[in-house]
């Protein structure tokens, strides 16, 4: 199996804050919608979350949006502190994975992550009636008491590999493996692929002079790269 370093480039100039990525992510990854009570308690889950920041006073307001998936750090602070190896950095893909079946729910990783991408299941997940029968069979449903987070939809990589093997190819094509958020973004603000592969668009996009990473000075080396708003 060939090695890859999957990463994401998000162009903030293109992002309109529409929320399509959040919705697609929830749909793809079996994230239940929050009840009003859960929302009031601060217990909503959103693997991909659009952080909103506004500057200035009305009417001269500048609003900016920052879509925030898991940063998939090359030097993740979360994997180090997990007492049971339930979160780990895959050497093969560069994706930070979660083992729901092993997690003991201590929430140390959630405290260690400076980006707040780890979500805890405070309650048993529940869907409104018809939705319960429309879950994505490729993604595990998480039970109460464990941590979950964005996985770059790595179940899609699995499908892409199967497809490639079926077609006799030894490589997964860039277009074969795209997470739900990048696939659905109407302004194509999200580019996804192998950062180390010069043939992938994401490799070129990451070289953009506008490129920066969130809280780069912490040394976490995120594989999610943002392009600063231009002008």
């Amino acid at each position, binding site marked *: 199996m060939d090695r890859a370093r999957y990463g994401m480039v998000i162009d903030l100039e293109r992002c309109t804050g529409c929320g399509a990525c959040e919705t697609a992510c929830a749909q793809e990854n079996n994230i239940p919608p929050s009840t009003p009570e859960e929302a009031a*308690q*601060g*217990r*909503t889950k959103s693997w991909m979350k659009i*952080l*909103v*920041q506004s500057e200035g006073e009305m009417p001269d307001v500048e609003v900016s949006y*920052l879509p*925030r998936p898991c940063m998939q750090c090359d030097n993740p*602070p979360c994997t*180090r*502190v*997990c*007492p*049971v*190896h*339930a979160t780990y950095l895959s050497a093969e893909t560069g994706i930070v994975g979660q083992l729901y079946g*092993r*997690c*003991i*729910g*201590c*929430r*140390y990783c*959630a*405290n*260690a992550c*400076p*980006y*707040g991408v780890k*979500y*805890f*299941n*405070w*309650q*048993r997940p529940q869907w409104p009636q018809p939705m319960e029968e429309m879950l994505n069979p490729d993604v595990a449903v998480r039970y*109460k*008491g*464990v*941590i979950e987070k964005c996985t770059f939809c790595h179940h899609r990589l699995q499908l892409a590999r199967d497809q490639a093997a079926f077609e006799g190819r030894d490589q997964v094509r860039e277009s074969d493996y795209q997470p739900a958020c990048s696939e659905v973004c109407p302004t194509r603000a999200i580019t996804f692929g192998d950062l180390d592969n010069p043939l992938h668009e994401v490799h070129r996009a990451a070289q953009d002079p506008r490129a920066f990473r*969130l*809280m780069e000075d*912490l040394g976490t080396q995120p594989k999610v790269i943002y392009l600063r708003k231009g002008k």
Partner: protein
Amino acid sequence: MSSVEQRLESLPPIRRDLLRPLVVTTATYWLALAAAFAGTVVGIACYVVQYRQGLGVTSLHNPVYWGIYIIDFVFFIGISHAGTLISAILRVSQAEWRRAITRSAEFITVLVLGFGAIQPIIDLGRPDRMLNILFFAHMRSPLLWDVVSITVYFTASTVYLYLPMLPDLAIIRDSGIKWPGLYRVLALGFPNPDDDSERARRLRHRLERVIGRMAIAVIPVAISVHTIIGFIFALTLRPGWHSTIFGPYFVVGAIYSGIAALFISMFLIRKNFHLEHYLRDIHFEYLGRLFLVMTCLWLYFTGAEYLTAFYGHEVAEMRSFWDKFTGAFAVPFWAMVATCFVIPFVLMVRRRTRTPGGCAIAGVAVVIGMWLERYNIVVVTGVNPRLEAIGHASYAPSLFEWGIALGTLSGFITVYLVAAKLFPMVSIWEVEEGLATSEAEVADRIGTYLPKEVQP
């Protein structure tokens, strides 16, 4: 007069005084035990609900992932530093006044440690998978270091409590005042201190050597325990936690709260068991001086901690800094300063208030203050994530969390009360030995401090 009381009255006066609590039980005792037991039951009931429904019954949320359970974890393990550490330091430094106070201190350590150690398990989302910590142990996680150090500490301090109790257990066994079968097993055939045979002398000598070595061995273990608890916070990147001072700061706080708890327990034992001749004013006076040193150390570390944050003026650090000094957490923060410094300092700095009563008040203040300190560390950083866009949260513990906290405290009080009925809370043989031999020994020792050879 019952036969037990007759047997008690026929004992020598020291043994009679110190063993009386084992056979004579007052109404106050039963009342305290009933109240503590009721509190424990409330806590257990709350936990059963939480176990079934999940951590949703707490007020925890994102990003306040940790709350009362982790605060209590740090707090109770901190209290446990009373015993073993204080007693070991006093033994190693050959402080003669330790004799009457080490036992009750060591009991605090062993009994409170378990209640501290279960807190992270109560806090787990999946307590049923607790053993994954052994099956899939990831030694790079500070939580695993903690599991190791607390296990070693619990083992070492239990042995360190039990060994010096052997001669006392032999005394109870031979006096026949209570459950002979139990004490025959517990005493492990150790000879009564009255036994003057060659074998008994050899065993006593060996016991004292082992106690001396254990006293040295438990000091680094105790220090490692609270250092690592400090590391659990300090080794994350969260503002307010990521600080090199946390290891030693936590150790100092632990010893400080430990002495505070010891004051409360010494005061209550003295008063309720009428042991004024054994736990004397001088014991409070000396321990009060040590307490004053800890008060100043606490201020020194706290000052260093906040000056570093303030002077660096990092944006993320300053959010939790101002939250404590003037913001939403100003009340718990300044209450902490009052209870951890102002009250104990004012009481301990003057000899006139370094009395048993003054020490007990200072002890209560510091126990509350050190709980608040952990609250300010865990919660204020919890509500202030480094990435500001996540938002500012708030946290007020739910009734279930308070119930479990009450149950934990009550559970500790329950077992401590039970222990006070089973074991003498002041070491009999050490007090007797002190009366018999230490006066001469100390006089000899003082002789070696002074310049004998120099002629005036």
